[in-house]
């Protein structure tokens, strides 16, 4: 049986910490318990850290303390006061630090072996090297991601054959790594780390800002793996478990995020590989798609939502679903209104007929004149199957057939989500500038189906059903 000596106590703490990490992550995966989740994990972290000080045979305690303080103090303060909108780049930075830490641990192990300390198994050394490679890539890659998101660097650096060049660098780094493990010669080790650090930078440079969240998530998973590998080398199960878990969760999360953005991971990483692909989507003024889940979240956490129905809602017979969506939002405390344009649909009062059928109370229905000044204060406008009646061209382009028609100024809202099946034009048969606006996202699909999807997603936010 396990004697209760100090060593065991530390091991027990690690065990508890690992358990808390797992449970914390689980709690973080549901909106209701998310806040307690990070706290559980935090307790685990503190416990493990304190316990480590009690490890027998630990030297340089003062140095460690200083390092911890240097590490904690600024990041803590910075994290406290950074603007909510700047958080994604902070995550990138902190993640890079973790990767760097793992890489440094790997470096120490390699150098230690090189200087003839107790040589770990080849397997362990190889893991140390792999962990270092991944960690180093994560470190420099995350720094680039941070710089781009923070607006300190905004061009995409691309040159022909870049992907091949990067692949070559990666290959050379791996070779160096293998040599380093094999020969344990310092030059190999140094070359390996230089290349690994460079690789992260090179990989990230060509990726556009819009894809950065996916990349950060990927590097997050990388860091997790690196930590796990170094954990194996150090024989520390807390590191192995936490790292592996984050690695696996992070990979999945990356895939989910990419999917939510309608991209594949491959696409994100190698978007200009071969020149083809969906790179064209980045051009300014393109229609930007959105997933139902994100549109739902946008509305669910909004204060004011205006729904603009048009002929497409009638065609899709989506009125019941849209009203259900509105009710769900209202139940969450969102202020919802319906804005009917005078000529929406194909007959006077077309939308009224449908909304009445669905049971929308009259007091939620606003006229164009009443609602137009309100759009500026509106968080999300949901346009379902309306086209001409929200087309800003009616105001800006005298040559347009709809020039002079008053429109619903949906374009003034903070966000616009447009549900339509595809690139179909409206009655007037003209392009709609709203669909290309910066604040507009397109939710492609049949009106009824998309409305249904939105309802489901809003429900999911309420925790399942």
């Amino acid at each position: 049986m396990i004697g209760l000596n100090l060593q065991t106590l530390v091991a027990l703490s690690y065990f508890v910490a690992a358990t808390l990490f797992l449970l914390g992550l689980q709690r973080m995966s549901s909106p209701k318990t998310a806040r307690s989740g990070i706290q559980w994990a935090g307790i685990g972290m503190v416990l493990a850290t304190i316990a480590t000080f009690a490890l027998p045979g630990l030297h340089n305690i003062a140095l460690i303390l200083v390092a911890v303080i240097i590490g904690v103090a600024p990041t803590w303060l910075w994290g406290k006061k950074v603007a909510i909108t700047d958080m994604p780049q902070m995550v990138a930075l902190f993640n890079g630090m973790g990767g760097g830490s793992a890489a440094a641990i790997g470096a120490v192990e390699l150098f230690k072996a090189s200087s003839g300390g107790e040589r770990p198994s080849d397997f362990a050394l190889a893991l140390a090297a792999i962990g270092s490679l991944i960690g180093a890539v994560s470190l420099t890659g995350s720094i680039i991601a941070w710089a781009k998101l923070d607006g300190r660097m905004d061009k995409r650096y691309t040159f022909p054959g870049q992907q091949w060049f990067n692949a070559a660098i990666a290959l050379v780094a791996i070779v160096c790594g293998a040599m380093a493990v094999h020969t344990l010669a310092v030059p190999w080790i140094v070359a390996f780390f230089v290349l690994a650090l460079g690789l992260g930078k090179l990989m990230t440079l060509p990726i556009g800002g819009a894809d950065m969240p996916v990349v950060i998530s990927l590097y997050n998973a990388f860091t997790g793996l690196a930590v796990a590998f170094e954990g194996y080398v150090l024989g520390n199960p807390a590191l192995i478990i936490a790292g592996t878990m984050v690695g696996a969760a992070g990979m999945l999360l990356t895939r989910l995020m990419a999917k939510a953005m309608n991209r594949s991971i491959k696409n994100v990483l190698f978007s200009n590989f071969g020149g083809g692909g969906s790179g064209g989507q980045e051009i300014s003024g393109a229609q930007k798609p959105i997933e139902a889940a994100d549109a739902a979240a946008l509305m669910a956490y909004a204060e004011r939502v205006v729904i603009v129905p048009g002929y497409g809602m009638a065609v899709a017979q989506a009125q019941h679903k849209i009203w259900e969506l509105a009710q769900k939002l209202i139940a969450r405390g969102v202020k919802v209104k319906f804005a009917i344009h005078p000529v929406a649909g194909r007959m006077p009062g077309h939308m009224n007929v449908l909304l009445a059928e669905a049971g929308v109370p009259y007091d939620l229905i606003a006229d164009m004149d009443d609602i137009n000044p309100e759009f500026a204060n509106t968080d999300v406008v949901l346009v379902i199957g309306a086209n001409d009646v929200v087309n800003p061209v009616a105001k800006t382009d005298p040559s347009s057939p709809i020039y002079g028609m008053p429109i619903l100024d949906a374009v003034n809202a903070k966000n616009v989500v447009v549900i339509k099946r595809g690139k179909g034009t409206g009655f007037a048969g003209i392009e709609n500038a709203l669909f290309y606006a910066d604040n507009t996202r397109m939710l492609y699909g049949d009106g009824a189906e998309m409305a249904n999807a939105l309802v489901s997603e809003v429900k999911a936010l309420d925790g399942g059903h």
Partner: protein
Amino acid sequence: MSDGFTALYIFMLAAIAGHVIISRVPVILHTPLMSGSNFIHGIVLIGAMVVLGQAQTTLEQVLGFIAVVLGAGNAAGGYVVTERMLDMFKSSKKPEAKA
């Protein structure tokens, strides 16, 4: 227990657990979860502490020191940011009310 496999088992179990936990997560939590898991791998800190604690050469000390600083930054920053992100779920109105 056949020893070489222990780490493998732990790897496998932790990976599956991580995967299963994330598999049915609402989109709204993607970013907080990324941030939260970012915090969790801040546990690298304790590995770094051990390394620094056992460092002998100056090079090892320097690298170990860097490792601890970075790891501590990862853990501390990750925590603060995640907690702030998750704060938005505090104010969220009771959704059971009429869902």
